[in-house]
């Protein structure tokens, strides 16, 4: 690509107006209302059921508030966290799948870019607008859950529970960011909004349904015919874990388990030698839990940035004067 002369000024000029416009468009759109209803329907049901179950718990639990998120009630086989694991991608894809190509199709892209706004600012503004919308929705949902917990359990959460909940919220937003970046990438690649939506949803379904099975099949294929020692078993299990971690959903699940179940020491199995002297059920301090899930968080955040960078490079090289 011939570059006659490098243009002057910050590449992010005009980021503010684009971001605000996108944010406002999202919040007022009918699509947003539908997504909101979808989220509330899927989120409220497990939370209401788990709260009902927690109200009958009599034993003292230092982390009762966190159990609202993780308890899978008897009658409803999914927990709130599990529900989030698939509603966040759907919401993120819904926000991002037509971010760029709809502008193409409405022929508004060249009009926008004729303003003193670089493409950098346009794409980043669209991404940040979507991310901010996602953050608003998730924070609102999070506050509703905490409020319902306060109301129905009648006890205030402890400081460390709020801190763990806040970290969980950050993990959820990062997870949404990955899928938002992915759908943005598809909206840059494909001119047709339907194709990009289909591709994004297809990718999500692949990781949500197919990838765990593929990871397991590959692990079994590469495992030795006979597992002789605990170390060997652990090595095979490790391979399976690493494979499954290519899915953002698996990373999000592990991060959530580490944050909301403070008793989690490790995601794999522990050797009997490592188990000796362990005080069972002793919660990890918050900083140790954060160190435990830090690789997962790193994966989510870095993945989000890399996918966005890919979308950015493709968008910059595209011909927009249609």
């Amino acid at each position, binding site marked *: 690509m011939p570059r006659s002369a490098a243009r002057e000024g910050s590449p992010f000029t005009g980021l503010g107006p684009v971001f605000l416009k996108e944010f406002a468009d999202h919040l007022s759109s009918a699509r947003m209302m539908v997504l909101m209803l979808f989220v509330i329907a899927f989120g409220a049901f497990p939370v209401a059921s788990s709260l009902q179950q927690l109200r009958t718990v009599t034993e003292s639990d230092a982390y009762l508030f966190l159990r609202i998120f993780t308890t899978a009630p008897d009658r409803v086989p999914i927990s709130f966290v599990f529900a989030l694991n698939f509603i966040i991608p759907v919401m993120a894809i819904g926000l991002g799948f037509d971010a760029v190509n709809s502008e193409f199709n409405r022929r508004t892209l060249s009009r926008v870019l004729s303003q003193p706004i670089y493409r950098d600012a346009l794409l980043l503004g669209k991404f940040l607008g979507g991310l901010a919308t996602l953050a608003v929705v998730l924070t609102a949902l999070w506050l509703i859950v905490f409020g319902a917990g306060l109301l129905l359990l009648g006890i205030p959460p402890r400081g460390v529970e709020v801190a763990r909940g806040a970290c969980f919220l950050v993990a959820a937003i990062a997870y949404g960011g990955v899928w938002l970046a992915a759908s943005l990438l598809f909206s840059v690649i494909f001119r047709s909004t339907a194709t990009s939506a289909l591709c994004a949803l297809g990718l999500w379904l692949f990781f949500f349904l197919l990838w765990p099975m593929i990871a397991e099949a590959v692990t079994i294929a590469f495992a030795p015919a006979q597992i002789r020692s605990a170390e060997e078993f652990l090595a095979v299990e490790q391979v399976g874990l690493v494979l499954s971690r290519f899915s953002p959903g698996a990373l999000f699940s592990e991060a959530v388990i580490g944050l909301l179940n403070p008793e989690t020491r490790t995601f794999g199995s522990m050797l009997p030698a*490592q188990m000796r002297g362990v005080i069972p059920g002793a919660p990890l301090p918050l900083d140790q839990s954060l160190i435990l899930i830090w690789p997962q968080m790193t994966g989510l955040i870095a993945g989000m940035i890399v996918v966005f960078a890919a979308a*950015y490079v493709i968008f910059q090289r595209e011909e927009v004067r249609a």
Partner: protein
Amino acid sequence: MRRLIALLALATASVLGSQAFAQAPMSPVMQGLFLLTDYPAQTVRAGEIATIRVKMQNSGLAPEPMALTLSGVPAGWKIDILGGGQPVASAMPGQNESVALQLRVEVPKDAKPGSQQVMLSAKGSRLQSAELPLTLTVGTETPAKLSLKSRLPSLRGTPRSSFEYSVTVGNDSGKDLTVALSAQGPANFQTTFTEGFGSNEISSIPIEAGQTKDIKVKVTPPRDVKAGDYPVLVKVAAEGATAELRVTLQISGQGKLALSTTGGRLSGEAEIGKTSTYTLVLTNDGTAAVDEIEMTGTVPTSWKVEFNPRTIATLAPNEKKEVQVLVTPADKAIAGDYVAQFRAGARGESSSADFRITVTTSTLWGMVGIGIIAVALLVLLGAVARFGRR
């Protein structure tokens, strides 16, 4: 009849041999009715009841009722003739048989010392009769007297051992006594009495006249007693008579170890692969010095534990000593809470403390994670620099 006996005797003699044959003609042939008693002259005590056993023997006579009478009973005395526990007036022994009788003699309290003659006579209807003169002497009462002996009056032990003394109590008086048992020891010493071979605690024991009984005195000293000799006075008492015995406890001191930390906090943190130091405090709460104390520790697999110092030569009573313990979690340890047990052991004495160790992971990998995010951002910035501002 006599011929028959002789014949029988001969028949027996032929079987039993020459010795029996020689005795056969010497069998008694006395005929008559006799009143018999073992001790015709007896001592009785004023105010008490004496029982005299009498036997009426019929040797070779035809049985007939014999009327029993007493004569010469002193004024104020009451003597009953009893047969089979009931007052009787006559007796009828069969041929060559005897009837047991008892004289129940009630001596008045104010009976004067001296001898009294009483005649018991039996009279049959066919001019048969027998008489038994009895001499009853009113004597003075022998006072109650007790004795107390122990074979091992001095025992040695630690404050935690129990001291058991075998004591023999003797009733040296002429009548049965119920003996009360008591003991006087230093403050907080506990004493209990048990039967010689029983486990029941007793406070008194009946002993028949002239007999002895074995009892056990168990003395439990308080745990914190200082070394030294402690006397315990064992007392028995009955009806004004007492006996005393002094037993001695030789208590040697004993050390007692207690393991703790300076603040009493039994938890700490340790980072994986790095050595953490905790300070333990070893105290001797006992009454004697503890020698050759060795420190040991039980930690999870492939952890390292060291003590500084590892051995302590001697620890005097009420002395404190600080011990540094160095714990290194294994490189492959997983963050979380673990239990380690530290022990101080000497001969016959040990103390242990459970220590809760919170294992933390190093933040190195957290830095690596931030580095990866920074690299991703750099990629983005590179893309902006390469393709930006279009």
